[in-house]
């Protein structure tokens, strides 16, 4: 699903590489936490997977494709097979919940009949069937994040990337979001989640990849947030 082979990334005018010789593989259907302090290279890792950046050296394979060999105009096709969720939800404030989810389908040219069918389905999945006509501003943070997940998942992607999805949420809402991501994972979608939330990582007992100053310092199945000292 995702394979990094000796990947390093150095940004221009930076001495220290953001990622330094990272190699790892994430299999289909896995649920993986990416942890590490700020500046550890988590964001760079995710940006490389999304091909918003290219590695300085090494190879990144996503969904079986070598991203270095993927031409620019094929990138959108690749991204349609990925879903992405962010800490700040990134909803369009002037569109309703239903329109926000539909937007993701409209801009890839899906027909109106398909949209009318799948949008209510996915809103049902995230537990917002009754909120389709509401504006994002009227919803709680947890509900907004559910809308964002619905939008990311509406194409039934093979891989869901979540960058601190619970970062703006209280513990109770965070648990709800984690349950939802777990359910999505059980449908066969690989989930890669970057997080700072120690409690969640410790509870879920999933694979944990830890980065520190660009180095891969830990890759542990059924791990916890930090080493138990």
């Amino acid at each position, binding site marked *: 699903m995702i394979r990094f082979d000796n990947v390093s990334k150095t940004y221009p005018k930076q001495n220290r590489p953001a990622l330094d010789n990272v190699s790892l593989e994430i299999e289909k259907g896995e649920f993986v936490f990416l942890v590490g302090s700020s500046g550890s290279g988590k964001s760079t890792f995710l940006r490389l997977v999304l*091909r918003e950046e290219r590695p300085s050296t090494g190879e990144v394979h996503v969904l079986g494709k070598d991203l270095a060999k993927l031409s620019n105009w094929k990138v959108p096709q690749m991204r*349609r097979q990925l879903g992405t969720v962010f800490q700040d939800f*990134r909803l369009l404030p002037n569109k309703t919940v239903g329109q926000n989810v539909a937007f993701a389908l409209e801009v890839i*040219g899906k027909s109106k009949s398909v949209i009318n069918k799948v949008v209510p389905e996915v809103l049902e999945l995230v537990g917002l069937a009754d909120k389709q006509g509401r504006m994002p501003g009227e919803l709680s943070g947890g509900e907004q994040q559910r809308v964002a997940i619905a939008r990311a998942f509406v194409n039934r992607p093979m891989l869901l990337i979540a960058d601190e999805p619970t970062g703006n949420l209280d513990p109770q809402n965070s648990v709800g979001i984690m349950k939802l991501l777990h359910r999505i994972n059980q449908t066969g979608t690989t989930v890669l989640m970057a997080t700072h939330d120690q409690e969640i990582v410790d509870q879920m007992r999933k694979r944990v990849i830890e980065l520190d100053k660009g180095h891969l310092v830990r890759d542990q199945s059924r791990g916890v947030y930090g080493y138990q000292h």
Partner: protein
Amino acid sequence: MRAQFVMSEIGVGLRRNLTMTIAVIVSVALSLALAGAAILLNDQVGNMRGYWDSKVEVSVYFCNKTDVTANIPGSNCAGGPATGPQMAAVQATLEKSGLVDQIYSETQEQNLQIFKQEQPNNPLLADVTAAGMESSFMIKLKDPQKYDEISGMVGGMPGVNTVQDQNEVLKPLFNLLNGAQVVAWTIMAIMLGVTMLLVVNTVRVSAFSRKRETGIMRLVGASNFYVQMPFIAEAAFAAVVGAALASGMLMAGKYLLVDHFLSKQISLINFIGWGPVFQVMPLILVIGVGMSSIAAFLTLRKYLRV
């Protein structure tokens, strides 16, 4: 691709950015109107060149009674008004030279008629008689540039008052028109440059104000074309409106300025008709739409990368 969705996105973009859109439309309209006017002026000058080139190039004026008494330096009128044999000698010299294509002989009487026709309101007209006019030869040269040779050949012959190069007479007019053309092209180039900058800036502001939308579009895998199209279409739409306004300005200019003003003031010049005006319209539309689409496209390459 869903046309309805794209159209609504374009509408949202144009309305959100209304003041800038208006600025672009006005700027496009002015620069295209100038472009059109410059092209039409070019046509006009070309027309006139062709018209005058096909006409007489050199005039030989013969002495009349008045010239004898006036005794203008450089003329050969001391011997009295030109006689028939003197005129015949000039004609023979011209024909022998091999430089002349055609000679039109005009008598004093004919020249009086021409004068009356061309300047019916001239206050001198009442006092002018045929004897006050000069007889003349209107000469068409094989090579219009050989004026000097003709002038040297017959300028000193008895009975010849003056030899005039008509192109010399028209030179100030053509100089004026050429100058006007240079000015029009220069202003047009500056205006087109300003319009380009304005389009670039408008698209940049538009792209910036919709960063959220375009960011989401890219994330969910909308193609570059789909992401960029609304912006390019916005710029193209503004250009179409601008081109329409410019066409209106050109038509108004042709109708009000040329047909109802200039052509009444200056009867000598054969002004261009509606044909060239209608030919210029699609041209400025293509220039306008092409220019702003390309400006938009190049801007987006920089601001909406994948």
